[in-house]
């Protein structure tokens, strides 16, 4: 079962804070349970799947689009882009019933997204306790995830530093390799050039000696 607890202030009583808990199985569109509390009393209600379909049809809105709007208004998934209002009006003897409604604000007009009657709970302490317990469990889970992400973050940073160091070393090693190979090549190549010069010199000397001898014999 999925849950979300949000804080709302009704437009007709903006000074009072209410806590709205929505609970659903897998998909909000399949229906959801509502719990509303002001920290003293608690009211509960249900919105079944058929009511969601009926509301969307009445509004001439595609069902999926309507569910998207419900998520934005009831689960605060919309961010700050759209504006939504809530209202509460008490009914019945000693406010046993509560009419809870929610609407979307456009520029100059608001249109009602939905409403339902909530029944006052006879034992609010238990409902409020469960609500607080759910919040504490959320905190614990988030804190745990936070620690895990933090550790993961540190591991990734450490790995990144290591690989960057390896890359730096590789770049330096590549430059060093090039330098070392050229140095060695030059020495070996120069040995060959020295040998070539030496042979060329020997050949020239022999050829000159033969020429001198030939010239001397002709003169003789």
């Amino acid at each position, binding site marked *: 079962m999925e849950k979300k607890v949000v804080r709302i202030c009704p437009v007709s009583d903006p000074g009072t804070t209410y806590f709205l808990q929505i609970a659903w199985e897998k998909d909000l569109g399949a229906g959801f349970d509502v719990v509303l509390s002001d920290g003293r009393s608690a009211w509960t209600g249900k919105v079944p799947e058929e009511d969601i379909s009926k509301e969307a049809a009445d509004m001439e809105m595609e069902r999926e689009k309507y569910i998207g709007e419900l998520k934005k208004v009831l689960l605060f998934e919309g961010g700050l882009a759209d504006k939504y209002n809530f209202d509460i009006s008490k009914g019945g003897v000693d406010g046993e019933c509560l009419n809870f409604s929610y609407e979307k604000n456009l520029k100059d007009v608001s249109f009602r997204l939905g409403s339902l009657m909530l029944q006052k709970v006879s034992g609010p302490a238990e409902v409020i306790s469960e609500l607080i317990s759910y919040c504490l469990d959320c905190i614990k889970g988030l804190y745990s995830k936070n620690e895990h992400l933090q550790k993961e973050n540190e591991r990734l940073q450490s790995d990144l530093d290591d690989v960057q160091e390896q890359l730096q070393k590789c770049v330096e090693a590549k430059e060093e390799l090039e330098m070392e*190979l050229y*140095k*060695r090549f030059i*020495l*070996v190549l120069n*040995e*060959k050039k020295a*040998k070539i010069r030496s042979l060329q010199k020997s050949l020239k000397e022999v050829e000159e000696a033969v020429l001198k001898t030939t010239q001397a014999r002709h003169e003789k």
Partner: protein
Amino acid sequence: SPETKQHFACEYDCYGDSYTGDTDIAKLKEVFSRMNNFQ
């Protein structure tokens, strides 16, 4: 012996590379690997 020394001096340079025999990657790598602490 001096004769052997003379023979190798004619055939190979001071780094051990042959003056006349064609070289290949393996032979040249071996020559280079012996060339440490040189100027």
